[in-house]
C-alpha cells in the first residue's frame, strides 16, 4: 500500500472587519503575493448579504499544497483585524501562539488616508511572512487604482516599519 506523501502545513491568515473596510481587497492582495511566489494558494470569502456593513472575513492559505479554502477554526497563524470591535468576533480563529495584527499597531495619525488601514496592516503582516518587498508592491499596484498608489504605499511602509 502506498502511503500519501506528507505535505507541510500551509500558512493560514484570516482577515476580518466590517463591510466596506477593504477586507476582501486586503485578502486579494495577500493571495496575489503568494500566487506570484509560486506556492499553492487558496482564498475564501462570502459575497452578498454579508457585505451590507456587517461582519466580513476572508481566509487566505498558502504553502506546498492547500486543500480547504477556509482556515479551520483555531488554526490561523495570523489574524488581521481591521476594526477593533471585530477582534472578539474572530478571536477563535487564531491558534495558540498565533499573531494578532490589529489597528492599534498603527499610528493612524500618520496614515495619509484612514481607508488605507487594510494595507497598513498588510505591511505589519509582511514582516512575518517570507515574500519579497517587490512582490508586495507589485500586488498593491495591481489591485488598486493608480490614484490610490501613493497613499497605500505610504500606509504599507508605515505598517512594515511599525
Amino acid at each position: 500500500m502506498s502511503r500519501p506523501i506528507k505535505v507541510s502545513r500551509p500558512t493560514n491568515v484570516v482577515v476580518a472587519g466590517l463591510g466596506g473596510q477593504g477586507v476582501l481587497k486586503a485578502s486579494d492582495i495577500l493571495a496575489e503575493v503568494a500566487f506570484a511566489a509560486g506556492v499553492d494558494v487558496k482564498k475564501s470569502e462570502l459575497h452578498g448579504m454579508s457585505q451590507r456593513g456587517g461582519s466580513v472575513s476572508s481566509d487566505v492559505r498558502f504553502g506546498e499544497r492547500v486543500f480547504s479554502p477556509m482556515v479551520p477554526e483555531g488554526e490561523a497563524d495570523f489574524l488581521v483585524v481591521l476594526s477593533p470591535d471585530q477582534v472578539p468576533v474572530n478571536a477563535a480563529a487564531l491558534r495558540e501562539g498565533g499573531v494578532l495584527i490589529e489597528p492599534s499597531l498603527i499610528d493612524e495619525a500618520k496614515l495619509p488616508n484612514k481607508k488605507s488601514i487594510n494595507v497598513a496592516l498588510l505591511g505589519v503582516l509582511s514582516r512575518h511572512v517570507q515574500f519579497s518587498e517587490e512582490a508586495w508592491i507589485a500586488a498593491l499596484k495591481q489591485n488598486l487604482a493608480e490614484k490610490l498608489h501613493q497613499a497605500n504605499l505610504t500606509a504599507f511602509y508605515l505598517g512594515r516599519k511599525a
Partner: protein
Amino acid sequence: MDSQAQPNALALLSGDEAVALAALDAGVTLGTGYPGTPSTEILETFEKLGGRAQWSPNEKVAMEVAIGVAFSGARALVTMKHVGLNVAADPLFTVALTRLDGALIVVSADDPGMASSQNEQDNRRYALAAGVPMLEPSDSQEAYEFTLRAIELSERWQCPVLLRMTTRVCHSKTVVRRGSVRIAPPGAPHFEHDFPSRVMIPAYAKPAHRRLRKRLAEIAAWNDAEGLNQLIPGSTSVGIITSGVAFQYVREAAPEASVLKLGVTYPLPIERMRSFAESVDLCYVIEEGDPYLVEAARTAGISVEGKPEAYRFGELTTARVRRILEEDDTPEPKPVPGKPPALCPGCPHRSAYGALKNLNCLVPGDIGCYSLGVLPPYEMMDTLVCMGAGIGVGLGMRHSLPPDEARRVVSVIGDSTFVHSGITGLVEMVYNPPETGHVVLILDNGTTAMTGMQEHPGTGRTLAHSSTGKVNFEALVRSLGIQNVFVIDPVKDAAEFEKLVKDCLEKPELSVVIARRNCLLAAGAIRALELSEQARCGDEQTN
C-alpha cells in the same frame, strides 16, 4: 484576468471566473442568467473576457433562451443560484427529454449554510428528478475543466448538463492552469426540423422519456468505466466517498484515508462505489447538505456510513469532517455572532420603511436589500418566501383578514424582483381584486443592488451597461388597468410619500406606488452612464 493569456498560463481565479474562462475557451455562443449570489460573477466575467452574456428577466426565460441556442447547434451557458433553478425547473424537466444539436450547460450555484439565500436546498436532487447528468467541481481548476467536460458530455449525449457548484467553489480563489483540458471547437449554428425530438406533445414525449432513461443508463455505464472520478489510494481500514468541495475538507481532515472522489454525481458510478466500499474495512460518505450520495449507495446495497443529521445543516468544514470521522458528538463550538448587515446609511429604502412603520402597515415582502427592513430599527417586513411572492401573499392576506386589518397590508417589492416575478402578481391583483383593494409598493432603486449592482430590463441598460430597450414600470402597470399609479421620490418628498401611501390604503381600490430613487452605492455609476448616453445621443443628432 487576461483573456489573451497564453495556454497553460496559471491564474488565481474564483470558481465563477474559471467557469467563464472555460466558456470562452469552448466558444460558448451565449451566456444567459439572472443575478444571484453566488453565481453572479460567471456572466459578468464572461462578458469582460469578450464573451456574449445577457441578464434575462428571470431564470426561466434565461433557460429558454439558452435552450434555443442549443437547439440551433451552438453552445449555451445558463447561470443561476440554487433557488433560481426552481423558477427554471419547468423548461429544465422537459428539455431533458429533447435532443440538442449544440450544448446546454446549466450552472446551479447552491448556497449551503445560506450565506445569502432564503433556503439551503440541495440541487443535486434536481439532476435526479429531471434526469439531467450532473458534474460537481471541487475547486477552480475543476470548475474550468468540468465546464469543458460538461460541454463535451452535452454534445455527445445531446442533452442538457447540470454543473452544480456551491458557495465555496464559486467564491474561493484557487490556482487554475488554463488549457489543461481542450475540447473540439463548436460546430456551425444551424436548425433542422426534428419534430419527435423537439416538440413534446404526448405522442412524441412518451418515446422521448424512454430514450432519456436509455441515455442515462449509457451515461452511468460510461461513468463506471471512465467518468471523471479520482481514486486516492491510502489506508485500507478507512475509505471515503465524496464529491465537490467536501473533497477538500476530507483530504485535510483525513490525509491517510483512501478516497473515491466523484466528478459526475448523476448518474452515479455505482459499481465503482461498490468496489471501492468493498476494498476498505469502513467506508464513509462525506457530503454537504442532503444525504444524496449515501441514500443512493444504500439503495444499491452498498454498505456505507453517512453523517449524523446535525451535519445536514450549514456548510461542512475541515473541523466538521474531523468530528464526523471521529464520531465526536460533543456540542459543536458556537461562532461568536458578528455585526449583522443593515440598510446603508442614506439608503432610500430607509425612508420608505420609516413611512410604513408610521402607518402601522402589515408588509408581505420580497427579496433584495430591502429584505433587511425586517431587522431593527424598522422590523417592517412580515413575510419573505421567494422572488415575487410579496404581491400574491399580500393579496391572500387581503382576501382573508377582517377589513380593518386587510387595509393595513402593503406588498413591497424591488425593481429587479418586480421584473423577475412581480408582473404576474399584478395581473392576479387586477383579475381577482380584494374587496378592500390593495397597495403594491415598488422600491425602484435603479439596480439589482443586493447581488452587486447588476442591470435589469427596467434600467434600460444591458449586462455590459450599454443602452437598450427599457421597460417603463408606470406605463406597464397602467396598461394592466390599475386605477392609481404614482411615481414619487421617497427621500426628497418623504412627507408626501407617507401621505400618498396612507391615502391609497384608505381607498378600496388597486394602487401601485413606485418609490423611485437610485441606490446610494450605485447612484454615481448610474449618473455617469446616463451622462455618457446623453453625450452619445447628442453626437448622433449633430452628425
